[in-house]
């Protein structure tokens, strides 16, 4: 019996090895490479290129609807320009604020040791994981209604009304982690001897930070700044809630799409995509060459800036701004939920409370919420699985690529979904896969999945490239030297190293999919995911129900974040 079983096992293992040997043939491998690139093109590049192509082909129609509408004239174009202008202004202000708060916090996290440092580190990451619609709603409640800040001052109206200022406040909350994240690691890895050398040569700490440390984090800072800027430029979920009548470009895309104004939407989407791509390309090309032209030093003044008093004030200010503009507003929705738990805190009316609205009212919101939550989880899970399958070979390919120019180009392409507005990307997907293009899908569950795979692709590939880069090639070489085929070596040697990288990529992709609003609205048809449902609740003014949904989202994303941190930390310790 036992030996028979062993025979079967041996046979199976032999078959597996044989299969892997076949898969390791050069022809099969190059076929795999082609498939990998093809999928990437189909899911990420294809929709964008198709959009561009269609606009060029149908230029006449676009020209008419955008610039020469028989009734509206060029009103559509003017509206586009207004919305893009607003978006760019918001993004610019937000980015400046992000740098002012984000850089000192990155410095604090990288250089100081204090109790609660880990907690602060997690809190800083949190807005990146929480769905922006939940974040936007929470921020609106805090600044914009009489439940939040104005309650402290006994005011009947909100502190900040919907509009540009509130958009900025919301965008700061979820974009500033991109700045902090992108430079914290670099600051941690800086060679302290360089700063010591500067000190012994007579420079004050401020001069050292300015002339030595900052130039070395410059590239990371620029990359983070571009991410923050493009995220602000392309955000939909939070903006829908806080914008009021002031429409940013992604919001216009969503509302035109709802009104099925396809040609104008296509044109606006393309403009937004082009702006983001230009920014990405500029930074990639010139980040290294941009110099800081401040060679002159004012020793006395800079020494004053280095004094304990000034640095303490700076650190204190950064932390204060973080708590007052990011942390408290972002989580205020939880307080709100408790305020409105059983009844309205103002009138005492129980039918205005969360319990009645969610669980007891005849429209059965809890059913809707659970269904949307189920849809969201289902989509996120499928998207994560698909992305792991298609991203791993891509990451391997980029990591092993020897031609520097091709590698740099691929690297740039992979970042595209990271920077272009997800609503514009969602629209391109709708355009390519829907009735205007290949006519394979209509808006609904599967189109949402394709859209989500597309914009979360970079979030999956990036950490995997990092993991592949970190694996020493000698193991691979050793395995091959012992006669393993490339595939067997991959399974036996590379994969175990990759485990924590894969899990990290999976969690990132999952969280990103869970939290998306813009692309979902465009591709969803009659389906509802939970971030979209939250926007619906908000628009129907059922705030307690929206707060309930937001809190669920915050809890889920927070759990994901903690999990991610645990895994990445363990990987680092190993």
């Amino acid at each position, binding site marked *: 019996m036992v030996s028979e079983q062993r025979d079967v096992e041996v046979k199976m293992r032999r078959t597996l090895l044989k299969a892997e040997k076949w898969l390791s043939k050069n022809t099969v491998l190059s076929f795999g490479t082609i498939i990998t690139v093809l999928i990437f093109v189909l899911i990420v590049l294809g929709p964008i290129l198709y959009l561009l192509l269609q606009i060029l082909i149908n230029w006449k129609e676009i020209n008419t609807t955008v610039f020469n509408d028989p009734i509206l004239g060029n009103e559509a174009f003017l509206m586009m320009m207004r919305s893009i202008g607003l978006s760019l202004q918001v993004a610019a202000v937000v980015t400046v604020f992000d740098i002012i708060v984000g850089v000192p916090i990155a410095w604090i996290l990288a250089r100081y040791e204090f109790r609660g440092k880990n907690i602060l580190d997690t809190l800083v990451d949190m807005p990146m994981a929480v769905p922006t619609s939940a974040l936007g709603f929470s921020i609106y409640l805090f600044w914009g209604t009489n439940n939040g800040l104005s309650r402290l001052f006994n005011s009947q109206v909100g502190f900040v009304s919907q509009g540009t200022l509130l958009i900025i406040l919301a965008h700061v909350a979820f974009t500033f982690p991109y700045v902090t994240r992108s430079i914290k690691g670099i600051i941690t890895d800086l060679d302290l*001897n360089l700063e*010591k050398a*500067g000190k*012994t*040569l*007579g420079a*004050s700490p401020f001069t050292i930070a300015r002339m030595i440390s900052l130039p*070395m984090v410059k590239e990371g800072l620029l990359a983070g700044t571009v991410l923050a800027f493009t995220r602000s430029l392309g955000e939909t979920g939070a903006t829908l809630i806080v914008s009021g009548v002031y429409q940013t470009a992604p919001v216009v895309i969503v509302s035109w799409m709802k009104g099925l104004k396809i040609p104008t939407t296509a044109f606006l989407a393309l403009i937004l995509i082009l702006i983001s791509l230009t920014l990405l390309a500029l930074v990639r090309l010139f980040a290294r060459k941009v110099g800081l032209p401040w*060679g002159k*030093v004012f020793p006395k003044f800079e020494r004053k800036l280095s004094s304990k008093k000034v640095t303490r004030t700076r650190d204190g200010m950064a932390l204060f701004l973080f708590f007052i503009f990011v942390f408290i507003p972002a989580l205020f929705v939880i307080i709100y939920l408790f305020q409105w738990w059983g009844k309205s805190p103002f009138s005492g009316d129980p039918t205005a409370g969360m319990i009645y609205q969610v669980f007891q009212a005849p429209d059965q919101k809890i059913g809707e919420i659970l269904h949307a939550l189920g849809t969201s989880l289902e989509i996120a899970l499928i998207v994560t699985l698909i992305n792991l399958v298609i991203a791993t070979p891509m990451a391997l390919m980029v990591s092993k690529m020897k031609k520097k120019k091709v590698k740099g180009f691929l690297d740039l392409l992979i970042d595209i979904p990271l920077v272009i507005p997800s609503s514009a990307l969602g629209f391109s997907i709708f355009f390519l896969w829907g009735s205007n293009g290949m006519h394979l899908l209509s808006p609904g569950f599967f189109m949402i999945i394709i859209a989500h795979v597309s914009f979360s692709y970079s979030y999956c590939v990036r950490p995997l490239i990092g993991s592949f880069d970190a694996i020493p090639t000698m193991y691979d070489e050793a395995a091959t030297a012992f006669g393993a085929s490339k595939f067997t070596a991959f399974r036996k040697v590379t994969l175990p190293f990759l485990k924590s990288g894969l899990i990290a990529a999976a969690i990132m992709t999952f969280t990103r999919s869970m939290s998306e609003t813009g692309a979902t609205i465009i591709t969803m048809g009659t389906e509802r995911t939970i971030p979209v449902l939250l926007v619906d609740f908000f628009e129907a003014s059922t705030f307690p129900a929206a707060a309930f949904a937001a809190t669920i989202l915050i809890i889920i994303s927070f759990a994901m974040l903690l999990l991610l941190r645990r895994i990445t930390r363990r990987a680092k310790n190993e």
Partner: protein
Amino acid sequence: MSEIRFEDVTKIFGKSVEAVKDLSFIIEDGEYVSLIGPSGCGKTTVLRLLAGTILPTKGQIFFNGQPMENVRIQDRNIGFVFQHFAIFPHMTVRENIAYGPTVRGRSKKEIESLVETALKSVRLGDKAELYPDSLSAPDWQKTALARVLASEAKVLLLDEPLGALDQKIREEFQLFLRDLVKREKLTAIHVTHDQAEALTISDRVAVMNKGRLIQLGTPTDLIYHPNHLFTSFFVGESDFLEGVVIDDTKKEAEVRIGQSIIKVKNMGVKKGKRAAVAVRREFFQVEQISTKDLSNSLPGIVIEDQFLGLLRRVRIKLENQQIIEAKIHAKHPIHFKENENVRVNIEPSITRCFDYPKEGIASALEM
């Protein structure tokens, strides 16, 4: 003018880790002093105390008679050369060198002339406009030195400055470094784990162990006149012969080792006490017993005679069963055979006896 004085300096890290203890010494202006000792002996701590990155727990450090207690790193006028050079990677060689005068707010003209002088001094003029990543290690080293020169430092602190260079280049650089320091009239304190380097490059060498200064002396002093058991153990190689002093005058002692009696220099051992006679392995003279009856020598039996390149190592078992190693020149005419009876001649003028440590030789020399 840069004379450096340590007065009873103690540095305690944390609660009780004594990194250096009761250090007192003077380094003269223009002197080149190396610090050597086993890892953890406190030599790097001395350098950090001088730089001002840490402050003494007790005691005072003076530059030219001025206490350094409240003088910040930036104002000490010291130049620090790091083991891995710490060249700013985003600046050209010229910008690196100009950094010191720039951050001190010098005028453009002054900066330019300081940089030019420094470039000339280290012979790096042709590479001034290059970035560090296109240079090799020796040029990084030169850039680091020029950067210090241009900052007008008078005291040069060197932390294993040649550690990252290849052996051949290291030897060239020892001469270059010493020449530079003398030419620019700097005071240099150089930490190294390479004894040969310290003995080649320095005016005086400080031997440290367990946070204490054991001996500060010229290279020849350390080799020929060690005044502590640890010095003869750490600098070069020595064997320690166990014996009893049977007659002591002020400077000489007669020590009985086994059945033989030898004369050596006395380092304060009283008559009748146990003594440790320290003999450098290179100073043993091994003679075949038949040549002549040597005075001041010990009988022994050859265990082996091994070729080491420029030297040969002869391992000999003495009468009292102790095994010693004599390093003799490879060209020594006689090849010793196993079990051959020999005499080991001991030169009285360069051999010293110390009080036999109570805790035993091994623990007394523990590092």
